[in-house]
């Protein structure tokens, strides 16, 4: 009886469901593969300088700007467009003067997705450049929604106008992607001055080159430890090799190891321990160097060469290069030195591995027809296995020493494709390759 009753209830309820008229017919649509187009921005900068600095207006929609404002707009535009995620509307096409209130109907015909209006104001003593401060008000509008979606005020020194522009660009990028771009990041590399090697720092766009007070006949393999803002590098002094650290917090140098044999910094495990390649009896092996006591502990050794250790982002494993198979190939091992696994199988020369910040890929240098090219290999950190085939990212000249940007979307490297070794940058799919230095550059590393 109970069964019957429940059946009845069930049938009644199902009947009820069917009998109730469907309020609306719910349909499903599946849409795949979006058109690969960047977001189109209307980027407008205008000045509101008090009194003396009134801008001469050439046309209502395109007023001429003072040089500092021009520089700001150029930096922002370059930052955003280089990401490949944004493009900007030619200012000649603007229907709306920059200082006018935003109206969606002025932007829809241009196909804009969003409009950024930046108001700049100079204040301070106008004669002295360094004392001048720039105030900026950045407002972002969404064209399709017709709404203001962001508003922020900034102020900065006129002497550091590019830094202010990078910060403005960062916030625009972040508003749409919720990710941190490397616009404020720097690239440290080994450059050349007066016949000697020296360490230089440039902005991510190649601008504002400055030199660190370190120079020697040879400067090798700068390695950066972001958490502690610590740099390790090797210099040559006569017949000796000196491994040094430079603490960026205090800007103090320290000699860690001085030896007749070559010691090259690999990667910091923590503030104290550094993975290094150390040469003993003409054989290179991987050691952990205690930077406080200068003591070395062998991790991976053998008859072959074992070089270039780079620690995984989770600090449990490291990649290194070994010729144990007969040719230099990339391997992975646990920090203990056990569980060694080969990861590259194509070609007979694969070196210089570098992890992506997320640990889901690594780049390396592989030889193709006698020229060195940069490859990207996807990696599964959980299984410690490679995913798919390596992807060749460069094709011209020789390309060396790749390094991932902090956000994992760009790679800097050195290349001699145009003769001299220079620092280059590209997106991780190999697009947008461009030189960042005019002069000699090698071994670039990213600094946040």
């Amino acid at each position, binding site marked *: 009886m109970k*069964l019957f009753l*429940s059946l009845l*209830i*069930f*049938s009644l309820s199902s009947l009820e469901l069917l009998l109730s008229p469907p309020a609306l017919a719910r349909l499903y649509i599946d*849409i795949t593969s*979006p*058109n*690969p187009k960047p977001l189109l921005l209307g980027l407008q900068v205008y000045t509101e300088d008090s009194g003396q600095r009134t801008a001469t207006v050439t046309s209502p929609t395109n007023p001429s700007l003072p040089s500092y404002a021009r520089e700001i707009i150029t930096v922002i535009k370059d930052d955003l467009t280089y990401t490949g995620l944004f493009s900007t509307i030619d200012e000649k096409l603007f229907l709306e003067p920059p200082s006018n209130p935003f109206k969606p109907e002025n932007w829809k015909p241009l196909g804009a997705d969003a409009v950024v209006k930046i108001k700049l104001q100079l204040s301070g003593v106008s004669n002295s450049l360094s004392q001048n401060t720039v105030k900026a008000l950045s407002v972002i509008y969404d064209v399709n929604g017709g709404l203001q979606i962001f508003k922020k005020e900034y102020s900065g020194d006129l002497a550091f106008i590019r830094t202010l522009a990078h910060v403005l660009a960062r916030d625009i990028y972040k508003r749409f992607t919720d990710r941190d771009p490397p616009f404020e990041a720097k690239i440290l590399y080994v450059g050349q001055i007066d016949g000697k090697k020296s360490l230089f720092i440039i902005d991510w766009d190649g601008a504002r080159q400055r030199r660190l007070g370190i120079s020697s006949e040879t400067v090798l393999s700068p390695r950066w430890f972001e958490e502690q803002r610590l740099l390790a590098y090797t210099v040559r002094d006569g017949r000796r090799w000196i491994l040094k650290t430079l603490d960026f917090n205090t800007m103090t140098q320290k000699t860690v190891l001085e030896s007749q044999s070559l010691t090259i910094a690999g990667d910091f495990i923590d503030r104290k321990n550094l993975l290094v390649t150390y040469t003993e009896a003409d054989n290179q092996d991987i050691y952990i160097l205690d930077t406080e006591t200068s003591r070395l502990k062998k991790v991976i050794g053998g008859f072959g060469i074992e070089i270039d250790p780079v620690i995984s982002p989770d600090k449990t494993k490291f990649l290194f290069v070994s010729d144990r198979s007969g040719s230099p190939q990339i391997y992975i091992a646990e920090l203990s030195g056990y569980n060694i696994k080969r990861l590259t199988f194509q070609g007979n020369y694969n070196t210089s591995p570098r992890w992506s910040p997320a640990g889901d890929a690594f780049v390396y240098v592989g030889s193709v027809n006698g020229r060195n090219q940069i490859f990207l290999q996807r990696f599964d950190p959980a299984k410690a296995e490679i995913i798919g085939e390596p992807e060749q990212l460069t094709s011209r000249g020789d390309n060396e020493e790749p390094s991932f940007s902090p956000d994992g979307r760009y790679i800097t490297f050195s290349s001699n494709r145009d003769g001299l070794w220079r620092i280059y940058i590209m997106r991780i799919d190999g697009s947008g390759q461009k030189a960042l230095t005019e002069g000699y550059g090698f071994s670039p590393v990213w600094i946040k």
Partner: protein
Amino acid sequence: MEKFSLKSDIRPPTSDLSSAALSLSIHILIIALLLFFETPHKKTFEKYMTVRIVSTVSTQSELPSPTVTFSTKPNISSQTESPSDNGIKEPPSPQLLHTPPGLVQKEPSRKEQIIEEALHAIKAKKRIEKIARLRAEIRGQMSEVRNQRSESMEKYSFKSDPRPQTSDLLSDLNLASGYVKIVTDIIHSNWTYPESRGRGLKGSVVILIERNGSVKIKEFNSSGDRLFDYSIRNAILKSTLPPPPEELEIEVRFTQ
């Protein structure tokens, strides 16, 4: 339903065959009932759709029965094809104002009927023209869409016809699937996302397409990626959709 299955599980399997037979027979009964109820339901849906379409063609306020509307159909075509048709050509409202009171007494129903029919016809004509214009617009958008779907395009080829026939329109609007296809193409043509490297992102929106074609986002299921979500939202907001055969709720699922 869960309740039911739970109870049947509790029953020992050794219970008699008769209850099993009873259950079976009741199931058959229910299925039969379901089938019985389903058929009329389908019919009403079709009718319901037709009525709605007809109402868009004639007037908003009135809901005439299908027969009434079909009777106005020849009027519409005559109106469009032969402007010299009696009564209809003249503007209706002045006629009403200028009619002597005596005449109104004589045959008020006949005249009013004609005027009303004329009004309907004019309104219907305007509406048809509007729909045709919208469709032509969509067609213009469609030509921009990369993938050519010649088959479905031919179905909608009448859109470019300057004088669409109501019967064609009706049969056409009945093709809900055709409408959904158009919506899919329009949204897809408006969907841009800059990253070519596929990360398998997925997001969806539930949209309500109102009778006039205006779109409301009812539900948003985030992909977890802000830029991807923004691209989805923009694809919907940028899309101008033609009026649907009836108010529609569509879940649009976007996959990178």
